[in-house]
C-alpha cells in the first residue's frame, strides 16, 4: 500500500469546502491496536494508515454520529463525510444507500482494495503484544511484522481473519476515489463455522446458543459497531413497553440477540464487526452468516452490492409461491 498516495488523496479530500471530515485508521496506542481516525485537516492525514490491522468497518460512524439540534440562527452543517472503505465496508455503504439510511451526496467514498486482514486475537496469541505500537505490512500472500530492522514473516493462513477467509468481495463495490490496484479475489473458503452448527440437531443447536448467549454482558457493542443497526427508535431500547428486559440472563439475552439477527437477515453484509467487538467471545458472525447464507440460497439475494437494489425485507412479489405458508 502506497501510504504517501493514501495520505495525499485524503489531504486533498479534507481540504475541500464541501467535506466535513474523513474517517480512516491510524496506529493505535499500543500493541496491534488500530484506532479509527477522524481527519479534520490536511495535517491530520499524515497519521492515516492502511495495514492488515485495519479490520474495523468504519461505515457505522455514518449513522452513529448524533444529529444534534441546530442552535437558533445557525445553518445545519451539510458537508459530506469522507469514508475509507475496504470491500466489505463498501457493502455496508451500498446497503445504507439502498435502504435510504444515508444519501449519496452525503458521503465521499474512498475505496481501498483489500488483500485480507489479520485477526488481532490470533496474532496476539502467537506473537504477544507489547506496549509498543506494532507495524505490520502485506508482503505477497503473507504478512510481515516490522520491528525496526527486524522483520518477521507471518504466514497468511496463521492469522487471516475468518471473515477474510470467506470473503467474496475484496474490492470496493462502490467508490468515488480508489487508492491502490484492484486485488484478485481469492477462492472463498467453505463456511465451516456455519456448517458445523448446521450439522447439529435442533436440541444441540439450542444448547450451543444457550451457552453462548448466557455469556453476554449486554454491553451493546455488537449493536453499536454494526453499520446496519441504526434505527433511531430501537425495539431493544424501548422502555414503554419494554420488549426486552434490562436484566441479564439467558432469556433476555436471547431475545436481544435474536431480535438483532432477524432484523439483519438479508441486510447483514458480513463485515464481522459484531463478533470482533464482543468482549464475551460470542460467535455472532456465525449467526448472521447463517441468515445471509439462507437469503443468498433461498432468495438469490445478496445485500450491499447494488445501492439501487430494492431492500430484501422491504420487497414483495405478487407471484411469490409462498410454499412455506400452510
Amino acid at each position, binding site marked *: 500500500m502506497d501510504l504517501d498516495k493514501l495520505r495525499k488523496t485524503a489531504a486533498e479530500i479534507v481540504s475541500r469546502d464541501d467535506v466535513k471530515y474523513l474517517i480512516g485508521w491510524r496506529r*493505535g496506542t499500543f500493541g496491534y491496536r488500530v484506532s479509527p481516525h477522524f481527519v479534520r485537516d490536511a495535517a491530520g492525514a499524515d497519521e492515516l494508515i492502511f495495514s492488515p490491522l485495519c479490520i474495523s468497518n468504519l461505515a457505522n460512524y455514518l449513522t452513529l454520529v448524533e444529529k444534534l439540534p441546530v442552535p437558533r440562527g445557525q445553518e445545519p452543517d451539510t458537508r459530506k463525510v469522507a469514508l475509507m472503505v475496504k470491500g466489505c465496508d463498501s457493502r455496508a455503504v451500498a446497503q445504507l444507500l439502498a435502504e435510504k439510511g444515508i444519501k449519496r451526496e452525503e458521503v465521499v467514498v474512498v475505496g481501498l482494495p483489500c488483500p485480507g486482514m489479520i485477526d488481532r486475537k490470533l496474532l496476539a496469541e502467537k506473537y504477544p503484544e507489547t506496549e509498543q505500537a506494532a507495524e505490520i505490512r502485506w508482503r505477497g500472500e503473507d504478512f510481515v511484522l516490522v520491528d525496526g530492522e527486524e522483520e518477521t514473516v507471518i504466514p497468511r493462513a496463521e492469522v487471516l481473519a475468518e471473515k477474510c477467509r470467506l470473503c467474496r468481495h475484496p474490492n470496493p463495490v462502490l467508490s468515488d476515489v480508489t487508492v491502490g490496484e484492484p486485488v484478485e479475489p481469492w477462492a472463498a473458503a467453505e463456511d465451516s463455522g456455519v456448517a458445523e452448527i448446521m450439522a447439529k440437531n435442533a436440541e444441540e443447536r439450542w444448547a450451543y446458543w444457550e451457552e453462548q448467549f448466557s455469556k453476554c454482558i449486554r454491553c*451493546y457493542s455488537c449493536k453499536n459497531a454494526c453499520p446496519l443497526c441504526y434505527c433511531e427508535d430501537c425495539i431493544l431500547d424501548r422502555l414503554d413497553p419494554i420488549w426486552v428486559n*434490562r436484566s441479564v440472563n439467558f432469556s433476555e439475552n436471547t431475545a436481544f440477540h435474536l431480535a438483532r439477527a432477524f432484523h439483519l437477515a438479508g441486510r447483514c453484509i458480513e463485515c464481522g464487526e459484531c463478533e470482533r467487538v464482543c468482549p464475551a467471545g460470542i460467535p455472532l458472525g456465525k449467526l448472521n452468516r447463517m441468515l445471509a447464507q439462507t437469503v443468498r440460497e433461498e432468495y438469490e439475494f445478496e445485500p450491499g452490492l447494488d445501492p439501487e437494489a430494492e431492500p430484501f425485507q422491504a420487497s414483495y412479489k405478487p407471484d411469490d409461491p409462498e410454499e412455506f405458508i400452510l
Partner: protein
Amino acid sequence: MSAKLLHKEKWSEFTGRLSGKNLWAPAVQGEVKKFVPVAEGETVSLEGGNTTVPPKALIFPQTETLYRFSRGEEEPEPPAIDEEMVLLGVRPCDARAMALVEKLFRWDFDDPYYLKRRELTTLIGLACNEPEINCFCPSVGGSPASTEGLDILMTDLGESYLLEVLTDKGKAIAGAVEDLLEEAPAEALKQKEKLAEEALAGIKWSVDPEGIPEALPQLWEDPLWERVSAPCLGCGICTYLCPTCYCFDIQDEVEGSAGRRCRSWDSCMFAEYTVHTSGHNPRPSRRERTRNRINHKYSYFVDKFGEIACVGCGRCSSLCPVNIDLIDILRQVKAAQ
C-alpha cells in the same frame, strides 16, 4: 499481621479445604476470564493475568433482585443474603476498587445489598509479579502488592505462596487451614519485597494525576472531548468491566400478578442513561458521555470522597474495541491544561 508459607504441593488440599466455604476463583471460559465457583476437587490455577470481568460482579451482581412482590401481599419480600463467600486470587487493584466503591454504597444511604454481601466476603489477594501491558496502578495510588481491601495477600514465590494475613477474616481462613501452613521465614518476606519492587519496575504506563481533578472543570468545552470521543461506539465495555463503576438502573419485571424489582448495571456511555421523560437528553452525544466518564472518575469522585475512582487496572484501555485509551486521554487532559 502474620506471615505464613504455603508450599505448592499443598495447593490442591488448600483450595479443596476452602471449596467448602463457597470458594470462587478465576477461570477462563472461552475468551473470558472471570471468577467462577470452585467445586470440591476442582483444580484452581492462578496463572496468567487479571480477569476480564472484575470481581465486583460478585458483590454487585450485574442483575440482582431487590425484592419480589405479588398482588394481595402487602409486604415485599427481599431476598436473603446470608451466604459467606471466599474470593481467591483477587488482584490488588480490584480489592482497592472495592474499597472505593464501598464509599459510594455507604454514602447518603447504606445500601443493604452491597454492604451485606461485602461483609460476608473474604478477599484472598494475589500480588501481581508480572504486570500486564496496560497496568498503571502506581499512578493512581496503588501498587502491584497493595493490601488495601484484602484480608490475605498471597505472593507467588515460585515453590510456595507467601500468605500475609491482614484481618480477622483472614485469620479465620488461615486458622481453618493452619495445618497446611508454616511460619514464613524472614527470607520469604525479603523475596516478596524484591518481587514487588520488580513488578513495580515492570509497569510501563504512567501518568501523574496531580492537577487533573482541578483541570477537568476548566476543560469543559475543550475540543479534546470531541477528539477523544469521535471513535467511541457508545457501548458499555469500559464501564461494565471497570472495577470502580457502580451505576445501576432499577426496573420492575412483572408477569401476571407477581413480579420483582431488580437492578442491573447501567452505563453513562449509553444514550439512554440521561434521557429525561420529556425526551430531552442533557448529554446528547458521545462527547458529553465520554467527558462525564473521565470527570466522574478523576474529578467528581475526588470532590466527594477525596480519591480518584480509578485503580489503574487498564481494563478500559485493553478491552475497548476502538482503542480509546485512558492514559492517552489523561495525557491529553494534562496537555490541554
